[in-house]
């Protein structure tokens, strides 16, 4: 893929957004990538795509994000996008207990279809609906600790913690990758420092073959 000069970045990370239908995945993404929120958004059919480049830990990181449909029927389609993803944002709705109960099923989905070292972040969205809250922060917090997930609560509507959630996930991916690249016993990442750019996690066909070693 030819790189545009105006699109300088050091890393390309592929991220997936998953979680039950209607929890606000698409609005989290549009808030993060375009600073937009729509009360009139339609359900996502299959997958939708967005991207944003931002500085994380001093590096320019381009995130390619795949927003997936929440309904179970679409799993067969959407799970194909887990492959090669370095990060996953697993979203539930703090006003919908079932969406929180289903988090474990989503984790299983990731275990079944995603790379084993995928960095998962649990996100409780819609904190603006204070009077409707039905999932306590502490419950989600302790669940996240048990499952070793990062955790944050967000409001896509009020733009609370949205950037932070994505940034945290990207930083963690970055740290994990740089740590890996330093360990010489991982031949797959041995030459990470040789190339200026490392394209990770994208489908093979999207990678820059000249410098990519991790796809």
């Amino acid at each position, binding site marked *: 893929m030819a790189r545009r000069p105006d699109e300088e970045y050091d890393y390309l990370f592929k991220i997936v957004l998953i979680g039950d*239908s*209607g929890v606000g995945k698409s609005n989290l993404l549009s808030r993060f990538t375009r600073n937009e929120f729509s009360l*009139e*958004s339609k*359900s*996502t059919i299959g997958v939708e795509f967005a991207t944003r480049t931002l500085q994380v830990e001093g590096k320019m990181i381009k995130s390619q994000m795949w927003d997936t*449909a929440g309904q179970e029927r679409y799993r*067969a389609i959407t799970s194909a996008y887990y492959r090669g993803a370095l990060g996953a944002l697993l979203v539930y709705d703090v006003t919908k207990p*079932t969406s929180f109960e289903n988090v474990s099923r989503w984790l299983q989905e990731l275990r079944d279809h995603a790379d084993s070292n995928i960095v998962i972040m649990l996100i409780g969205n819609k904190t603006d609906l204070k009077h409707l809250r039905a999932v306590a922060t502490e419950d989600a917090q302790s669940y996240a600790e048990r499952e070793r997930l990062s955790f944050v609560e967000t409001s896509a509507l009020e733009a609370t913690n949205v950037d932070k959630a994505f940034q945290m996930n990207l930083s963690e991916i970055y740290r994990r990758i740089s740590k890996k690249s330093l360990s010489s016993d991982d031949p797959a990442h041995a030459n990470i420092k040789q190339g200026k750019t490392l394209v990770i996690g994208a489908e093979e066909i*999207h990678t820059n073959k000249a410098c990519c070693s991790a796809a």
Partner: protein
Amino acid sequence: MRSESEEERKNATIDSRFNQTLRNVQGLLKGRSFPGKVLITRRSDPLDNSTMRSPDNHGSLRDSETGPSQQSDGSVEDEMQSRNNLNASPSASQEKSSTSNSENTSNEVQKPSIGSRATDSARLMKFTKELSATTVILEKLRELAWNGVPSYFRPNIWRLLLGYAPPNSDRREGVLRRKRLDYLDCVAQYYDIQDIERTDEEINMLRQIAVDCPRTVPDVSFFQQAQVQKSLERILYIWAIRHPASGYVQGINDLATPFLVVFLSEHVEGSIDNWMMSDLPSEKISDIEADCYWCLSKLLDGMQDHYTFAQPGIQRLVFKLKELVRRIDEPVSTHMEEQGLEFLQFAFRWFNCLLIREIPFHLVTRLWDTYLAEGDALPDFLVYIAASFLLTWSDKLLKLDFQEMVMFLQHLPTHNWSHSELEMVLSRAYMWHAMFNSSPSHLVS
């Protein structure tokens, strides 16, 4: 906003492409240059230019529906009047660049092939004649409807084309009455019950439907009415319960909306922006819902595996689309492949929602005239429509990289589309179907 010159340039390109395609087809038809035996049409048309009827005679029937008030008019007179207005403007066909001008210039492109093209009023007469027959001949109705149905006739014609209303006029009323009662029974039996009487699966399904109804066509204010959303919920839930192999799948909510709008148009006046569901008595609402339910069922009967596990039907269409695009437009196909773009990344939604999501809502009923006229052949023809739709932007696509392409294709600039762009898509689909469908190896290197 696009500048006017850009717009003109774009149209010039479209026109030239279209003309090129048309010449190709006509050349092939006249010169019989097809290798081997070619069946040009599934219909009974003679093998001459009149097989190209799709673009020629559509112009007449869209005029009354170009604005947001499309479904509102209820009289033939209105249609004829608005058509006359358009006829009075001879330059209409030259002014395609203006998006406000809804008249379709592809008329002009087709003029040479029109010959004994029927006048518009004659066309309306044809509809009237076909509909008033003791037994409607569906094949004839399909031919007429393919090019667009006047909104006044649309509810009746859709019911007939889908096989919901029987062609025999003596039986029609009785059948509809029975089916409507049948629906009412279903609502009582499956919908108007307590959650405790439902299985977990049913509760889940109802919950999913309830999540989706408020976000169905959210850009049209009519669909924000609570009663409209309740009607949708009932229709979708009953459909899902009665079709357990697929159950409710997101996107089917979109598919119910053209029916709702069309069957409502029989009972309300004015523009859709002013329709109030609450003005209607509950018996009427229930009849409308019943018609929607049955027509949705009939439509989806022909696409059963589109919504079952892993949606094989849709995957098949996506695959066929990729193949077809490779045959029609090698450069675009190669470019997409080089960029690593998968057809599934954009075309899945196209087929799942039958393009409803991709065009302005006021054009959807016109698109569906063609869908319903295709009948059982719809899934196959959808591939051609999708190819034609995609290649509307073939020049643009060649300039985009992977990311730009995915985002472009997921948010296509069709907001300002009028009927002319849609007719172009349909006409080209028709031609490509004639060229490629019966000659699987044609143009394959």
